[in-house]
């Protein structure tokens, strides 16, 4: 039951991220290069976001949250510069909580989250490549 709710919440979050009132064709799978001058806008105007750039490849150390220790204070989420931590809706001991979930596609492994975590619930693991 809990797992199902988590997956639904993740999907909701992704949908929420995607459905903004923004220009069309914002996302691109890789960096856009126009085929010709004719295809370009007249000036250097950017219409695509940076989601194509998977900065997770920058990591040497990978953070892993131990949810047994996590107190849901959200300090890791608060300080993430990417932001590569999103919030899932979960129920913990009968209470609605927001749970930090690391997005490894973008996490650069800067270490702020494991440094700032007040209960040392985040481990820094060697990145396997």
């Amino acid at each position, binding site marked *: 039951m809990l797992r199902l709710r988590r997956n639904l919440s993740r999907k909701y979050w992704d949908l*929420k*991220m995607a459905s*903004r*009132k*923004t220009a069309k064709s914002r996302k*691109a799978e890789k*960096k*856009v290069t*126009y085929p010709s001058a004719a295809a370009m*806008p007249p000036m*250097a*105007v*950017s*219409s*695509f*976001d*940076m*989601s*194509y*750039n*998977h*900065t997770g490849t*920058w990591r040497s150390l990978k953070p892993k949250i131990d949810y047994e220790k996590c107190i849901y*204070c*959200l300090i890791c*989420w*608060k*300080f*993430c*510069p*990417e*932001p*590569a931590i*999103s*919030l899932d809706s979960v129920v913990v001991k009968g209470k609605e909580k*927001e749970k930090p979930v690391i*997005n490894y*596609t*973008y996490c*650069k*492994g*800067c*270490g*702020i989250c*494991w*440094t*700032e975590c007040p209960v040392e619930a985040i481990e820094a693991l060697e990145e396997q490549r």
Partner: protein
Amino acid sequence: MSSLISREEIMGCGHVACQGCGATILMRHALKVLGRDTCLTIPACCWTVIDGPFPHSAANVPLFHAAFMTAGATASGIRAAYDMLGREKIKVVAWAGDGGTYDIGIQALSGAAERNEDIIYICYDNEAYMNTGIQRSASTPLYAWTTTTPVSHPKETPKKDIVSIMAAHRIPYIATGTVAYIEDMIKKLQKAKEIKGTRFILLFSPCPSGWKSKPEDTVKLSRLAVKSRLFPLIEIENGTDWRVTVRVEKPVPVIDYLKLQGRFRHLTEEQVGLIQLSVDREWEMLRGKVIKEEKQ
């Protein structure tokens, strides 16, 4: 505490900021407070590159890349245009580094402030020209190493007091903020949003690449800067009413802050002493100006 922070992410992932970049944590939270009805103008600085290459952008709000010295002037022009077009509600925000604020950009900033342009000018201060490879700026602190203030001849002059300079313009609102005290910064930006006229926000922004500190120490460094009274968190109304917003009861010695950064590794005991002296002196001067200290 965290209820103050909007859950909607405006700044997107995939940007090319260094690991542990203070300026990026600040942009993420600033955009959350400012909202989508914001137009940014960014002069040459790290964020020129962090935002990503053409035709991509991580900001997700309208953004005009401007020439290095023009943040204040470009923002003035955008503001005038929106006012003429009946779009007064759009917030016009200049987002500049310390170079584009203290040095090359100070003329345009001073001009805009003197005209009391209805803009928010946010300077993220990483204390050197980081985008071009760590050269000194007027904001570089005493004895810091940069490529143009090498260890054999570190910076002999103190950091320029931009806050007092802006206060001299008697603009309606000035505030300082930093990474470790996000809630304090959020409250200040929320307050600034509601004020008309020029609002100047100085955000202390640790830079692992330029300060030769560990990326994971960014928040810690910004906390130590406040707790040592090196970077007091204040706000100033109308240039005359100064207030401390985060009270520091027992300051930590400034060496606790300095020793985590490679750019201060060469400091002699005497130099550390002089830095401590200058922190203490500046704090005394600030106390003289402050009308009220708030409980944290």
